[in-house]
């Protein structure tokens, strides 16, 4: 036994535990010894500052510039897509401001789990946490698939091989599982570098598209499709959500943020404003340089003398291929390589979000407890990382038979996100009225109007899912039933009272009592 190497556990864990307890608005002497030990065993480190929050916010979302949004152009046109995009930009700008208020008040890795738990009861906490988990997990799947597609495009721009695309996606899943297992600070450094690279890629695209830009393509006649009118805008909204979905991942970083009352609001606002500029310019140059329908679909021979429409998974790369392949193949390949930064930066952040949400749900007992364990030395949630990566890999392999996987994953992710945005605003109103002291560190401007705007914009966005012809609503309902079924039949009697989200809820009175 004496010859076995001793594991070195970080000596600042007591300080971390004290900070988590303070953020839960719990006095240290109210903590039982076994609860303190539980927190110490499940503590995350706290190195993130404003620039890290900005990089996390921009980096996790920037993949939306490189794929997904273009599917909204199909049969809807560029102007409808622009209006839908600006509606989504407004939703997310108001959303991140309101989210900052909740996130600073309850800075836990559980995020929505904590908000719902404290505002109402464990059931709402579970539904909100599960919503964000679905949002993150399906966004991760979509991005892994798109990364594989971009890599396959690099190897054969004329006709990317779908099997190679799946293999590349699986390699991405494995690589980033290993990278995330290293620890938060290392991830943050990589994220900042990747984010700058991704932004550089977009700037390169804008410059390359400029010589081919035409205002007639951006503003066609009629401005909205003759057969659809304003319905084209409604149909484009679910895909426009992909520009900006997942920025709320930053809320999960609050437990790992230094001075969250300062770093979270400032980082989020600057990230959102950066993204809005990127959205508008990417839309402008992509739609101005290439026909919008060609950005959305590729016509391929079906072997029977006709053609079949194939959704485009790599619109910017396709545009570069159309514009520059003959004049400068090196530029096309160079852009493709840089575009991978965008995919990878977002994939990085999405794995972070998915694993942290699964970790928080596991730590609190809402999902299997093993998901809530951390590595003894690295303090990273290695088992939740593993499970999320395996789920992603399984869906990636399924893409070999199910070709619309990316579109479905995008829509399930955005629909799940909208559900918890609405519930989060409900929690905000409840907690503001019942526990105003929670919000003494930070309050959002436009105190009443802004959260109401978030709710109405989200309701509007959910409504339009009934307008588009994709069967994601039943699939999403099934996923919710699976989660709620597990929680109802098993987990809700086995909640972990020492988890930060449960400690925080203990302060809010009778509703906070854990069901026996």
């Amino acid at each position, binding site marked *: 036994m004496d010859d076995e190497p001793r594991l070195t556990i970080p000596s600042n864990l007591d300080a971390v535990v004290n900070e988590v307890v303070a953020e839960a608005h719990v006095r240290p002497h109210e903590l039982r010894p076994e609860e303190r030990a539980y927190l110490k065993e499940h503590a995350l480190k706290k190195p993130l500052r404003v620039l890290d929050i900005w990089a996390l916010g921009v980096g996790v979302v920037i993949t939306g510039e490189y794929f997904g949004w273009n599917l909204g152009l199909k049969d809807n046109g560029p*102007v409808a897509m*622009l*209006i839908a995009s*600006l*509606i989504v*930009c*407004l939703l997310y*700008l*108001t959303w991140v*401001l309101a989210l900052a208020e909740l996130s600073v008040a309850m800075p836990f890795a559980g995020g929505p789990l904590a908000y719902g738990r404290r505002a109402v009861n464990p059931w709402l906490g579970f539904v909100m946490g599960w919503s964000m988990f679905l949002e993150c997990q399906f966004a991760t799947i979509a991005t892994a698939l798109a990364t594989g597609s971009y890599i396959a495009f690099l190897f054969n721009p004329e006709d990317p091989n779908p099997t190679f695309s799946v293999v590349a996606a699986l390699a991405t899943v494995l690589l980033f599982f290993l990278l995330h297992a290293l620890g938060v600070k290392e991830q943050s450094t990589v994220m900042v570098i990747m984010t700058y690279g991704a932004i550089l890629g977009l700037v390169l695209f804008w410059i390359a598209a400029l010589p081919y830009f035409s205002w007639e393509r951006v503003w066609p006649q*009629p*401005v*909205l*499709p*003759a*057969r*659809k*009118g*304003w*319905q084209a*805008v*409604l149909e484009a909204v679910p895909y426009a959500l992909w520009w900006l979905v997942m920025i709320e991942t930053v809320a999960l970083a609050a437990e790992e943020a230094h001075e969250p*009352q*300062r770093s979270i*609001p*400032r980082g989020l*606002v600057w990230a959102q*404003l950066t993204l*809005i500029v990127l959205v508008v310019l990417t839309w402008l140059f992509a739609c101005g340089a290439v026909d919008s329908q060609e950005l959305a679909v590729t016509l391929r021979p079906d072997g029977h003398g006709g053609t079949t429409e194939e959704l485009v998974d790599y619109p910017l790369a396709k545009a570069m291929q159309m514009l520059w392949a003959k004049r400068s193949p090196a530029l096309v390949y160079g852009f493709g390589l840089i575009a991978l930064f965008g995919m990878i930066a977002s994939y990085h952040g999405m794995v972070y979000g998915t694993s942290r949400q699964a970790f928080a749900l596991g730590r609190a007992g809402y999902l299997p407890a093993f998901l809530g364990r951390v590595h003894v030395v690295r303090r990273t949630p290695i088992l939740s990382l593993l499970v999320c990566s395996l789920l992603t890999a399984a869906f990636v392999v399924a893409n070999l038979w199910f070709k619309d996987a990316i579109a479905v994953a995008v829509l399930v992710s955005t629909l799940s996100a909208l559900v918890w945005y609405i519930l989060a605003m409900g929690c905000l109103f409840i907690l503001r009225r019942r526990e105003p002291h929670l919000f*003494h*560190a*930070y*309050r*959002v*401007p*436009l105190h009443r*109007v*802004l959260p109401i*705007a978030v709710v*109405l*914009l989200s309701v*509007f966005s959910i*409504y339009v899912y009934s*307008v588009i012809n994709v069967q994601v609503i039943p699939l999403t309902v099934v996923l919710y039933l699976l989660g709620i079924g597990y929680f109802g039949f098993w987990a809700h009697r086995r909640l972990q009272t020492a988890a930060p989200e449960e400690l925080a809820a203990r302060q809010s009175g009778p509703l906070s009592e854990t069901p026996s």
Partner: protein
Amino acid sequence: MSEQPSRSVGFLVLERLTGTVLVLVLLSLGWMIGVGYLPEQASHPSTEVEVLIVLGLLVAALVLVSVVALLHTRSDS
């Protein structure tokens, strides 16, 4: 933890204006759903004017909310 600083009159006026524009945008979304069921209006001469008005409202809302958010964040530093 920082306390919220008192708001200037100018900032309050800006907030009121932003709130008004946000309400107008929300009303336009309701109108959009209603008129979305009337696709035969798509080639109507007023469609381009409608598009410009909606775009103008959205841009105004984005600019105003951004300004308010930045001023608010700076005042908290």
